[in-house]
């Protein structure tokens, strides 16, 4: 096989068994790779109501046919399982659904060099274990001496044991071991798979790490054609101004973009919706000037946007570490009411070492601060810790408590929605979330494409499922032909003529429907979506499909690949439908329909309830889901997912009967 290795590994930690399975071209045609193969397994090999900590929950690590090749940004891995974080039924926190997290850097490429497209881990080991993959040799090794170590110590210890600095490690830290619900999995020191608690799933299996060394090449069907397609794409990315900004300031440049568009970087738990003068103290530009030591690049990426920080002034002088990314800065910084960039970066490093999702951690702490400010949470609840806005000392301390599951950190480590349910007193109204996963940096009122995307995301509130970046005028203006292609002539006219386009929902169901599949194609190929979803330097997914065809030697059309992306999104949606989660969960908390943005260019903005109802219905119509958001039997037939019909229909009938009864 070309592109793909055609093999995947199944590990049963309960039995201590390892199996290598061959993948057929038919299967790969249906699911492609990476997120696609993962989502297929996570649906078919689980049952309704399965506890994410059940040993039977399949923890999948998937890479794509382009991972580990010369294709730009070909270092991505998706990690998927039923998520301990996410929940449904608006929300019933004991209802779980699909979860996944994505990471870059180099581990995924190494897995291809070892000769595998995916690893599926089930069962639970009696003792802490790590998996060693050295080309054809796959072993389970004792991790007792690693248990309790942070992610950096773990990686260094394994490198030391094997005597090879080039081996690549994914691992959990103490947070994952202790089943913190938003525990992350770290790769190659500081690249994180943060969201939806995949680290906790690994911890529940007593799986500490997976280490890979590979000596094989990824085979390419048509090397000359492939090289040509890669060069064309790489050079286009290199010459794009947004890529160049990304190189200098990293993903933190998107924070600066947000500032320019009047979106306030989650100021004080997405409450006020604006912070005057934010950009003067907290920006990618400032960070790069003051704290950047050097940059770091994921496998085969021409941009190299990752940061390596070295703090040379102030109380954290001498600290150096990888990161931080934009979301980490935003959710630990302005979200908690601080504009101290150095402290925020150090907070991110604490999260990396313990193996914690920075977005969920920042959300939990900012929720506590929000409630404390309104008198709904006191020192009685927090074990004596005051939660004042902008108190970085508290945040730094509490992050360690979350990682160790100590005191109030233990409750916060359950995820914000569960913490709020425990405390009660109306604190649930202070948790910006969808399906139990906390909203990230985008204000849940303003950029309505992202706002709709959050609600419809198949892994809980997440901007990375859709990334409808075309809704931002500066990006749209640079890609007018793409706007025309995506929206069609009629909706394009609406888009260009709308005075407050960002807050106008009317074009967003169409934009989101396209964006979701566009972005998914990158996840299937195992490449970074930034050049096709955010900077759009590679155009859209049709800009990367020639690389795919030349690498693999298949002739599958762009339309077919786009449809495959639709199939993947649909099976993830079906996972939620099967749990009884649909329209009731596809929404935001009341706050964003009621509390207007306080100041700035979008002052007065809330989500318009009537438009929202319309947008939900329109989104379902465009997807051929019924008006409650259940995938229809016709759509499942069309996507060759007939075997899902029975369960989805049963669930739909239950849901609709419950609605009638109300």
């Amino acid at each position: 096989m070309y592109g793909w290795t055609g093999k995947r590994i199944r590990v049963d930690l309960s039995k201590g068994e390892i199996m290598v399975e061959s993948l057929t071209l038919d299967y790969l045609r249906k699911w492609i790779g990476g997120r696609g193969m993962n989502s297929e397994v996570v649906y078919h090999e689980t049952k309704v109501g399965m506890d994410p900590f059940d040993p039977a929950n399949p923890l999948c690590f998937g890479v794509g046919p382009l991972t580990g090749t010369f294709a730009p940004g070909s270092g991505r891995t998706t990690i998927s399982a039923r998520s301990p974080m996410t929940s449904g039924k608006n929300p019933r926190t004991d209802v779980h659904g699909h979860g996944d997290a994505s990471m870059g850097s180099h581990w995924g490429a190494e897995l291809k060099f070892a000769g595998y497209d995916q690893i599926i881990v089930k069962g639970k080991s009696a003792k802490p274990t790590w998996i060693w993959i050295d080309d054809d040799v796959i072993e389970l090794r004792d991790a007792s001496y690693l248990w309790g170590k942070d992610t950096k110590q773990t990686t260094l210890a394994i490198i030391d044991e094997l005597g090879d600095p080039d081996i690549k490690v994914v691992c959990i830290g103490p947070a994952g071991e202790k089943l913190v619900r938003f525990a992350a999995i770290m790769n190659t020191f500081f690249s994180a798979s943060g969201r939806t608690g995949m680290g906790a799933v690994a911890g529940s299996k007593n799986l500490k790490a997976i280490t890979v060394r590979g000596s094989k090449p990824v085979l390419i069907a048509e090397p000359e054609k492939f090289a040509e397609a890669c060069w064309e794409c790489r050079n286009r990315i290199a010459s794009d101004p947004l890529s160049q900004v990304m190189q200098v300031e990293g993903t933190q440049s998107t924070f600066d973009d947000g500032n320019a568009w009047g979106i306030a970087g989650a100021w004080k738990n997405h409450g006020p919706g604006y912070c005057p003068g934010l950009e003067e103290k907290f920006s990618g530009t400032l960070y790069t000037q003051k704290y950047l030591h050097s940059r770091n690049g994921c496998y085969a990426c021409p941009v190299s946007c990752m940061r390596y920080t070295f703090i040379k002034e102030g109380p954290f002088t001498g600290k150096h570490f990888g990161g931080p990314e934009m979301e980490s800065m935003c959710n630990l910084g302005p979200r908690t009411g601080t504009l101290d960039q150095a402290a925020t970066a150090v907070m991110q490093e604490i999260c990396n070492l313990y193996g914690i999702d920075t977005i969920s951690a920042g959300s939990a702490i900012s929720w506590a601060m929000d409630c404390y400010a309104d008198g709904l949470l006191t020192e009685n609840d927090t074990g004596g810790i005051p939660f004042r806005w902008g108190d970085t000392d508290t945040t730094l301390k509490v992050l360690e408590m979350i990682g160790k599951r100590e005191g109030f950190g233990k409750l916060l480590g359950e995820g914000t929605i569960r913490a709020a349910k425990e405390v009660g007193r109306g604190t649930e109204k202070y948790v910006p979330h969808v399906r139990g996963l906390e909203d990230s940096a985008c204000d849940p009122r303003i950029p309505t494409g992202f706002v709709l995307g959050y609600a419809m995301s198949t892994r809980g509130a997440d901007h990375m499922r859709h990334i409808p970046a075309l809704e931002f005028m500066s990006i749209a203006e640079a890609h007018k032909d793409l706007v025309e292609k995506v929206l069609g002539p009629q909706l394009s006219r609406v888009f260009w003529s709308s005075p407050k386009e960002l807050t106008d929902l009317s074009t967003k169901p169409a934009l989101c429907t396209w964006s979701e599949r566009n972005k998914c194609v990158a996840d299937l190929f195992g490449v970074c979506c930034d050049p096709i979803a955010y900077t759009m330097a590679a155009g859209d997914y049709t800009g990367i499909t020639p690389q795919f065809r030349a690498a693999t030697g298949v002739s599958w059309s762009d339309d077919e690949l786009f449809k495959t992306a639709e199939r993947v999104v649909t099976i993830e949606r079906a996972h939620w439908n099967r749990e009884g989660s649909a329209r009731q969960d596809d929404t935001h908390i009341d706050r964003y329909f009621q509390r207007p943005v306080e100041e700035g260019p979008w002052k007065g903005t809330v989500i318009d309830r009537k438009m929202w109802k319309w947008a939900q219905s329109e989104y379902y119509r465009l997807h051929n889901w019924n008006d409650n958001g259940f995938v229809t039997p016709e759509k499942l037939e069309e996507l060759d997912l007939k075997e899902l019909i029975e369960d989805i229909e049963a669930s739909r009938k239950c849901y609709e009967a419950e609605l009638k009864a109300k």
Partner: protein
Amino acid sequence: MRKVIAIDAELCTGCLSCEAACSLKHDGKCGPTYSRIQIQEFREVNVFIPIFCQHCNDAPCINVCPVGARMRKETTGAVVTNQDLCIGCKACVYICPFGAPIIHPETGKAVTCDLCEGEDEPWCVQACVMQKALLFLPETKASVPKSRAYARAYVEQLKSLTIT
């Protein structure tokens, strides 16, 4: 005047695009074990050092090779291994100041950079389009990236001293 690939290691971000390009060009597949350029990684401090044949003007590998397989190409000035003669003894690896020769995964023979003979620019240099850690320069300019890296650091130091 022959051209060489000059290195500014401070600018290397460890993305390994050069390794992917090199293996694709020479062997039609993508994999670091096929790459004539190897990046030595020190990830815990984010330092990356590109290593590849420097095509020494007085090459110790040419002298040490027991079968006379190491030779200089007149066209590019590159020092390469004659694959028909090489016996894979690895003497060239050990005599090289940098340990540059790789042992080819399929043949077991020593292989080194050939400056992508026939191309306008070596593929690794082209792949490093945004970082510019690798530059294809006339040999008399080979020290420019390194000396400018030093000068850059010194200039930064001077700048910070002039703040009042």
